[in-house]
């Protein structure tokens, strides 16, 4: 009895998971995606998925790509890298997708990398850390700016203001931990002294102990917070509560309208590097990104009635780079598409101007970051 049910369950499970398998000749182009739509990284994965769904729909309405429709096959890894690995296998072996756009976190991305390398499938990651594209992996690309760029941008700005003694407060999430490492390296390179180096947990509700320590550290001239999501907003509040008057910088992980709302008055004067997307309406008309950023912003907020974040923008860029590559390759042949992605030149996206090469699978330079400041509850461009 037991044994029979065991077999039935296996087959039933197999049928249940394999139900979505059409295989006609007029195939759509399949865009695979594994995103962290739930779990701790959900606030990244959620807008990413929404963006992909929105634009796949839009592209299809406009006649698709290469005369074929696009089909989005997406799975939620629940912010668990091991699940991402499993779903990547499903995309590769079962759904037989033509490209993967996704991998919300660095952990998820890195767990998928060996699979796409082996399957020789183009993969555009939406995660931040430098390790994804350094060293260069043949089939792996990414669209978001790296944490290293963020650290460099912030330190640049600090140096302009003659701030060289900095307290670092980083989150213990993957984003924060990688950011901490890059920031430490960048500080040494740029002649910045980290006089304090504290961390907080992504689910912490009170950062005043760490901030008190920083406040009482001698010689601090500025504070740099490397985190994502709600934590940094709480840092702002604690900062204000303690009455710390030093310049406060955040990383690009909080580049969303939500951050301003959550911080309330405590956010005033805070600076951070971010893509032009957030200040699309404030860009000069001559700015090449203005059109793209405004259009994306409009489309997203009209459809979902919520504010844009730069994370959704990364998904937009990833999808558009893939689509662009399909067009230039003239087919979905994986090797050709890969080559086309690598040959992406001058693509203007929400994240900046992308110039990929055999040695650079991200293709963004420092100009992609703008230094923003919160003023009167809105972003303004510094400089």
């Amino acid at each position, binding site marked *: 009895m037991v044994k029979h049910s065991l077999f039935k369950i296996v087959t039933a499970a197999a049928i249940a998971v394999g139900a979505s398998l059409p295989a006609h000749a007029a195939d759509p182009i399949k865009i695979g995606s594994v995103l962290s739509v*739930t779990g*701790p990284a*959900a*606030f990244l994965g*959620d807008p990413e998925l929404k963006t992909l769904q929105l634009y796949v729909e839009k592209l299809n309405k406009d006649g698709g790509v290469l005369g074929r429709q696009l089909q989005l096959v997406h799975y939620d890894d629940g912010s668990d890298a091991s699940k991402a690995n499993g779903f990547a296998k499903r995309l590769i072996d079962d759904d037989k997708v033509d490209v993967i756009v996704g991998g919300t976190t660095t952990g998820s991305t890195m767990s998928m990398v060996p699979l796409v390398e082996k399957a020789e499938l183009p993969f555009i990651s939406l995660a931040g850390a430098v390790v994804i594209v350094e060293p260069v992996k043949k089939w792996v690309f990414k669209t978001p700016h790296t944490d290293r760029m963020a650290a460099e941008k912030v330190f640049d700005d600090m140096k302009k203001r003659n701030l060289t003694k900095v307290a670092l407060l980083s989150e*213990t999430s993957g984003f924060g931990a990688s950011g901490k490492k890059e920031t430490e390296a960048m500080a040494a390179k740029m002649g910045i002294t980290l006089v304090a180096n*504290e*961390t*907080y*947990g992504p*689910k912490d*509700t*009170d950062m*005043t*102990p*760490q901030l*008190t*320590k920083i406040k*009482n550290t001698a010689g601090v001239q500025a504070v740099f917070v490397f985190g994502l*999501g*709600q934590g940094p*907003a*709480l840092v702002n*509040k604690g900062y*204000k*509560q*303690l*009455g710390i008057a030093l310049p406060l910088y955040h990383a690009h992980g909080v580049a969303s309208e*939500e951050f301003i*709302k*959550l911080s*309330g*008055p*405590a956010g005033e004067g805070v600076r951070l590097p971010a893509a032009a997307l957030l200040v699309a309406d404030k860009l000069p008309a001559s700015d090449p990104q203005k059109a793209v950023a405004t259009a994306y912003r409009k489309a997203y907020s009209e459809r979902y009635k*919520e504010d844009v974040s730069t994370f959704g923008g990364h998904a937009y860029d990833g999808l558009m780079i893939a689509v662009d590559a399909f067009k230039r390759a003239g087919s979905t042949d994986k090797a050709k598409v890969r080559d086309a992605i690598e040959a992406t030149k001058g693509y203007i996206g929400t994240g900046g101007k992308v110039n990929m090469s055999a040695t650079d699978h991200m293709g963004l330079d420092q100009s992609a970051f703008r230094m923003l400041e919160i003023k009167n509850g809105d972003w303004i461009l510094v400089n």
Partner: protein
Amino acid sequence: MLSQFLQFLFSGITVGATYALAALGFTLIYNASNVINFAQGEFIMLGGMLAFFFMQSGLPLPLAILLAIAIPAVVGMLLEKLAIEPARDAEVVTLIIITIGASLVIRGLIQIWLGKGAHSYPAFSGSEPIHLGGATLLPQSLWVLGVTALVVIALWYFFSRTLAGKAILATSCNRLAAELVGINTQWVLLVSFARSAALGAIGGVLLTPITLTSYDVGIMLGLKGFVAAVVGGLGNGLGAVLGGLLVGIIEAMAAGYISSAYKDAVPFILILFILFFMPRGIFGAQVTERV
């Protein structure tokens, strides 16, 4: 240096009061039914999220708060009626998994309904910090502490001075015996779940201006509440409150003086040590098993 210590202390007490409220919720349900309700954290989340939602929809503050406390209480009763009561005689792990299932359902529904973003609303009496001995304290923290204290007093009065409270204690001791002396134990269980859910929700409502809220804040709060409840000795209300404060203060001190990276580990190391030397928590009763 004193001001630094005070600052850590304030931080610890505020966070600790949260844990205390969560731990009290655990204790109330545990006392009535011997169930550890792993969905306790979700009631805290519900309180904050619902208060945000109702304020957003333009309801006046008192009404929004009332609804944000009443709805979780109903959810608590439903949980008891539909999930705990039918499986009452099951083993400890089975009940744990039922409550974990319930927490997933609550969290999932809120996530679908109100989204994944974080939310907040203004503090009840402004956000201008109060200066005290060189350290600062938010007015909202006083709200949290004050209400926690009120709750503790009310509960103490209820359990030691009213018949209904004694009925609940009797039910936890021996359900059958309680029924024999005419206590409606079904009602007792229902009320206990409602009360503990409401308590969690109150915590959520008060905390949100300080800590923000989102669909998934309940997990960590629930876990820390459980730690606090065990530190205090399961089933001991005063122990739960002191346990909560202790865990909060130790966390803040660990973050301030030892290592902010390991501060989350400190409460768990603490609980292991406490249990090794006091197998029933600090304030737990010693019992002799009968053969």
